[in-house]
């Protein structure tokens, strides 16, 4: 099907089902129960899941296949966001031109940075990309303020021209982003008993693009081009000695990966038309590295899982505050309750980084192949088939 073998088609099918039914899957608890705290099925977070999924899938095309560890990928995401918002300001609120432009600009930007950075390999390549990203961040944050609006972030105003659309709506508001009239922010709500499920247009558009992005990524993984990239990873020197020029291949991978990041940036701006400089900061670049490694670098589904995992922690755990903890443990004796809350509050709320750090440490130590390896082990443990078949195309060379 679609030029995929049975196994890959199944994988794509699984991802498609997950994306389509995410509003149900992510909302397992009734809306007014105590566990509703852990529901993740609201539009903003679901959008983040798929958008960062795309970002991580793209990053994995570079890192997973060629082994080149870019520490500056957030720059392309930021450039994509800025391009998209400018498109909303100047042209129209339709997301299609915005997303196309963000991919093109991010691709060109990646071509430039890749051309210079790919002259070096290993740690020097990482440092170069980091330097470029940090430069982009500083430029966006301060020097290029007329274009980027500095720290405040680029926003839409009531005075933007929007030559193909309307400057302001009839009742004096800023028009909203749409896909040929279909508003990105509008949400259908389905109440089933105690459960509330939200179906958001923007989410489903981003989800459809994730499926396309994922499909292209599978095709690249299975193509001769992908094979060449893997050869670069295993021994670039030997390739060079045989007379092969690997640079066009790595550069192409870098640009494709940058365009994925641009797509993610454009989508972020389409869901919420604002672009801030902090999207380009090195911490944002580090985040996508974490996502990929946590999920399983070099695997197809790993980066998507990693992205979901980190975004879940960032948005759900960071909102558990002291009052919530007290309400969980109020049945316990006072002294014990306070002691437990005192310990736990360092791991939730603003301390969620600590929890994430610990989990990351555990995953890297015990599951070097990331969450995918965890899944495979579980599969072997409980699977009906013998593990002879488990030899997959995914491989788990630890990150350098």
């Amino acid at each position, binding site marked *: 099907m679609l030029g995929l073998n049975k196994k890959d088609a199944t994988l794509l099918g699984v991802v498609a089902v997950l994306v389509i039914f995410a509003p149900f899957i992510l909302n397992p608890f009734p809306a007014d129960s105590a566990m509703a705290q852990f*529901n993740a099925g*609201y*539009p*903003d*977070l679901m959008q*983040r899941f798929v958008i960062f999924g795309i970002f991580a899938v793209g990053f994995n095309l570079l890192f997973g296949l060629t082994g080149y560890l870019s520490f500056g990928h957030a720059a392309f995401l930021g450039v994509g966001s800025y391009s998209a918002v400018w498109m909303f300001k100047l042209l129209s609120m339709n997301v299609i031109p915005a997303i196309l432009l963000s991919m093109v600009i991010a691709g060109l930007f990646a071509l430039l940075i890749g051309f210079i950075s790919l002259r070096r390999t290993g740690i020097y390549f990482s440092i170069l990309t980091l330097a470029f990203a940090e430069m982009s961040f500083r430029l966006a*944050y*301060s020097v290029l303020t007329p274009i980027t609006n*500095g*720290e*405040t*972030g680029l*926003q*839409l*105003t*009531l*005075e933007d021209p929007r030559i193909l659309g309307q400057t*302001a709506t009839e*009742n*004096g*508001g*800023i028009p*909203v982003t749409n896909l040929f009239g279909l508003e990105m*922010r509008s*949400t*259908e*709500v*389905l*109440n*089933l*008993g105690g459960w509330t499920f*939200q179906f958001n247009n923007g989410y489903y558009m981003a989800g459809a693009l994730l499926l396309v992005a994922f499909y292209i990524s599978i095709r690249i993984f299975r193509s001769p081009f992908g094979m060449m990239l893997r050869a670069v990873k295993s021994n670039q020197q030997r390739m060079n000695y045989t007379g092969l020029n690997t640079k066009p291949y790595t550069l192409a991978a870098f640009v494709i990966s940058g365009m994925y990041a641009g797509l993610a940036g454009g989508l972020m701006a389409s869901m*919420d038309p*604002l672009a*801030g400089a*902090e*999207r380009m900061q090195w911490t944002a670049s580090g985040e996508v590295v974490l996502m990929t490694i946590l999920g399983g670098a070099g695997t197809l589904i790993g980066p998507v899982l990693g992205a979901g995992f980190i975004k879940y922690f960032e*948005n759900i755990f*960071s*909102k558990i*505050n002291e*009052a919530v903890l007290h309400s969980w443990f109020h049945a316990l004796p006072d002294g014990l309750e306070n002691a437990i809350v005192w310990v736990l509050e360092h791991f939730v*709320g*603003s301390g969620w980084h600590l929890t994430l750090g610990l989990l990351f440490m555990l995953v890297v130590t015990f599951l070097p192949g990331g969450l995918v390896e965890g899944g495979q082990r579980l599969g072997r443990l409980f699977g009906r088939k013998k593990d002879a078949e488990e030899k997959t195309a995914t491989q788990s060379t630890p990150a350098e």
Partner: protein
Amino acid sequence: MTNKLTRRGLLKTGAVGGAGLALPTIFTTGAHAFTNEPSGGTVTLGFNVPQSGPYADEGADELRAYMLAVEHLNGEGDGGMLNTFSSKVLEGNGILGKKVEYVTGDTQTKSDAARASAKSMIEKDGAIMITGGSSSGVAVAVQSLCQEAGVIFMAGLTHSNDTTGKDKKANGFRHFFNAYMSGAALAPVLAKTYGTDRKAYHLTADYTWGWTQEESIVAATEALGWETVQTVKTPLSATDFSSYITPVLQTDADVLILNHYGGNMVNSLTNAVQFGLREKVVNGKNFEIVVPLFSRLMARGAGENVKGILGSTNWHWSLQDEGSQAFVKSFGTKYGFPPSQAAHTCYVQTLLYADAVARAGSFNPCAVGEALEGFEFDGMGNGPTLYRAEDHQCFKDVLVVRGKENPTSEFDLLEVVEVTPVGQVTYAPDHPMFAGGALGSCNPGA
């Protein structure tokens, strides 16, 4: 035995039956008149404050004030400013009889994170109003989000002219004063204390607040005859300002103006004092440092270094009016120390919102906005105050303060030099520093 109840059959029947029962409820949700209309006996407010980053201290204090305000609205505690507030519609039974609940989030002092956090409050927790923030960049970003989503935004500590200037929104309201007011209040005192022929060097936090404060102070001081030697922008995330202080020594500037707030100001002032700027004599005059926006939390962070330094502030706990005293008393009883100006403005904003809902008789953002526009009140610690309808900015007296030479306690760090009357800091809604934006029309969402 043909009609056996199988597991598969049971599941099928259950699924079909469930779907049939659920069908009528699918289309029942379009009935809301506005975003997150409260149903049931509770109403949820969203408190979005910085819990990490350079403004984390302010954020923590804001959160304390919010929790106190919720207590008072629900009729717990001693009622605080509800007893001194000139409007008497709040009865301590929640808002319109609905018990007030709240959710909290971390803005990280980043626009993106703040918007994500506010969005999850609106989409997931059903918050009807978002308030908080300790940075103008964040306030502007969240304000425009609330405008789009159709909920009210009650700005916390935000001092940039843009919040109620070029970035003002119909759904956003600000109680805190702004950079223009600081300049208008501070400049006469500066002229009186330091003379009218000074040369000023500005260090400015590089974002909307810093820019507008620099603009306001430069305009106000130059009108008095001061000269501006140079203005330098510093990144908000900076923690060491030595490299920005050294160049000051090479100019003939005799006043350093720090357009910094929170952790930034604590660090830059400490660096400036370490470099011996305050002992310096330039042009035959003592070198002076001015911090246009001052707060007690910053004064505590900077310790000894704030002594004698002039600045302006929205409110100070040592004020002797009834409202301030009631607030300081209930805050002090609950937490053991006096509130900061950030806590004060957040507390007041929550009460003002609740009062507007009660007066309007509805949670609809448009009705609430109408009730707040042109609202005149007293008893909230700043004297008679007006919520101006044209730009949703509060107009009230501004305090000029100085770091105390002989503090009597760790909280008694600032002394009020002058209370600038509201008339002196009022400006026209179309003043050039505030021009270029439009409120638009209120958006009830849904």
